[in-house]
């Protein structure tokens, strides 16, 4: 029972990190219908920023996450202006293929340039917080803080999307872009904002990712694909869905690792993805396709 709980706690905490990473992707895909394959690379960039911040400036990860987040938003805004804005107006099928090409291209550029400048090798942010032990189960404080932060962020984003004008504009634009324009919402601005926000979230998450795990220049694409699986399972464009999806994937991976064997856990994640797509394509909490 002890182990069961420990694995469960681990899964919840892992899920929090997955969710943070997936939020940004959910936003940009939900609103803009753009598959941003370079999402994971902004996460890596954030991680490197956090690493340098701690090593050379002594800034702790929580602070550097916020900085990374803001810088990420700025980068995302530039990304949008420079590249995405040129393809937004096109037909849906064309947008799918071109967004894949462009974002894949950007992903390669970021990964390769980072590897070239960094000189290779993997690293992580060496930052430790103490743990809480309670009834034989260990709660790593860093992760608990992260979980709290994620829940806080989810509530905050949810309030933003339902209570503020801009937030509701974002939701409107994701449901029906033409209708949104008709009622006076500047969909271009909304799209830009969402995209920038998504990238900023990725960068911020990257700092935490580097603190908990390791980062290296070429890991971005694999991460993006995993987050894609999460938002599909949970529901595209739905933030609570990303939370749910993150938890489900994390739990199934952890339990598979413990009870069946670690080598089968990637299979579980993809099987869940495929089943989710077949049974309920809009995800558990997503809205049905118009």
């Amino acid at each position, binding site marked *: 029972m002890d182990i069961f709980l420990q694995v469960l706690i681990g899964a919840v905490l892992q899920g929090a990190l997955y969710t943070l990473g997936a939020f940004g992707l959910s936003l940009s895909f939900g609103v803009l219908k753009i598959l941003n394959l370079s999402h994971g690379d902004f996460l890596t960039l954030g991680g490197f920023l956090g690493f340098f911040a701690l090593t050379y400036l002594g800034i702790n990860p929580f602070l550097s996450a916020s900085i990374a987040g803001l810088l990420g938003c700025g980068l995302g805004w530039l990304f949008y202006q420079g590249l995405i804005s040129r*393809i937004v107006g096109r037909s849906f099928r*064309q947008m799918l293929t*071109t967004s894949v090409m*462009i974002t894949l*291209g950007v992903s*390669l550029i970021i990964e390769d340039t980072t590897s070239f400048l960094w000189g290779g090798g993997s690293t992580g942010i060496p930052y430790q917080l103490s743990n809480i032990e309670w009834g034989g189960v260990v709660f790593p404080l860093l992760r608990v803080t992260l979980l709290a932060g994620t829940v806080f962020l989810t509530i905050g984003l949810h309030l933003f999307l339902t209570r503020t004008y801009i937030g509701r504009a974002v939701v409107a634009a994701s449901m029906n872009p033409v209708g949104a324009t008709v009622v006076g919402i500047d969909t271009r601005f909304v799209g830009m904002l969402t995209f920038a926000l998504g990238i900023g979230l990725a960068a911020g998450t990257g700092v935490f990712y580097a603190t908990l795990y390791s980062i290296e220049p070429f890991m971005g694409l694999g991460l993006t694909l995993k987050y894609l699986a999460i938002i599909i399972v949970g529901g595209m464009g739905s933030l609570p869905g990303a939370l749910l999806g993150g938890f489900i994937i994390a739990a199934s991976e952890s339990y598979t690792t413990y009870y069946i064997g670690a080598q089968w856990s990637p*299979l579980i994640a*993809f099987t869940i993805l495929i089943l989710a797509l077949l049974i309920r394509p809009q995800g558990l909490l997503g809205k049905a396709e118009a």
Partner: protein
Amino acid sequence: MTAKFTCPEVRRSKRRSGLILLAAAMAGAALVPVLGTSYHISLVFFLFISITLASTYDILAGFTGYLNLGHAAFFGMGAYVFGITIQAGGGTALALVLTPIVTVIFSVAIAYPLFRLRGAYFGIATFGVLNVMGVLATNLRDLTGGTTGLSIPPTVSTEITFYMAGVVCFAAILLNTWIATSRLGLGLLATREDEEVAEGSGIGTMRIKIYAMALSAVLPSFAGAAYMWQTTYIDPASGFGSGVAFAPVIMAMLGGSGTVIGPIIGAIFLTVIEEVLWSHVGYLQLTMYGIVLVCVGIFMPGGLMRSNYFAKFYARIGLPDHYGYQPSRLLRIMSEDSK
């Protein structure tokens, strides 16, 4: 039922020049082992495989609009089935027979459930299938060798595998041409433009989609077998990894998805760029690759073949117009013909 359709855009004279070009290319390719070095053989061998994968990928992607991001699974399966059969002592002939059979059965099996999905979801699901195959290849160690990989003794000369890959490649080109000018292709194009309307017009969309998927699976499996025969080593990353998965997609998109020539041009273009870049420039090759992708995505969204920048050039050198890119005329013809 017996009348074979020719796409209206394809005037006979232009079609003939296309065939002449193809014949010339085949002759040129056949001469490579004679005139070139082993490096040229290797280069063109991999080019053949790339063209095969890109063209067969485009059977689904270009004609039906369904992006099968897991297309590389057929290649990986081909390589593994071939290798496993040989390792089990089955002999080359049996291996070459089993490879397409197993792969086609697999393709039909996944087609049934997956074709209920549309658009991006289909793409993601097929990519998921590819990864599942990769995980299976890694974990079923006794069958596939897992991460250690599968190895067979090098028994065949590079010339034979070269010609095998060449035959497969030209078969893929001819297959695409045939589909483009057949009723099947017409049905697929109709499905792409509006599936409900096509279904309503009497096209069994599910049936022809599965048929197209099966067709697109045969040749990559042979390509995989040729690759395994030549390199004698396969592991999950080489057979089912992201590199193998995205390359045909990029090539098809780059060249122009939905045209017969597009994937070929895309494959050749990328292969040439890779060779020129990677042989003469030391660093940042992937960055340049990425820049190429971004530029094509922004400035030439339909691919090189549909680019307005080159349209005049294409007209002057007499390349046929892109097949089947004007659906409304095709649909009209289709309904005229129905009983």
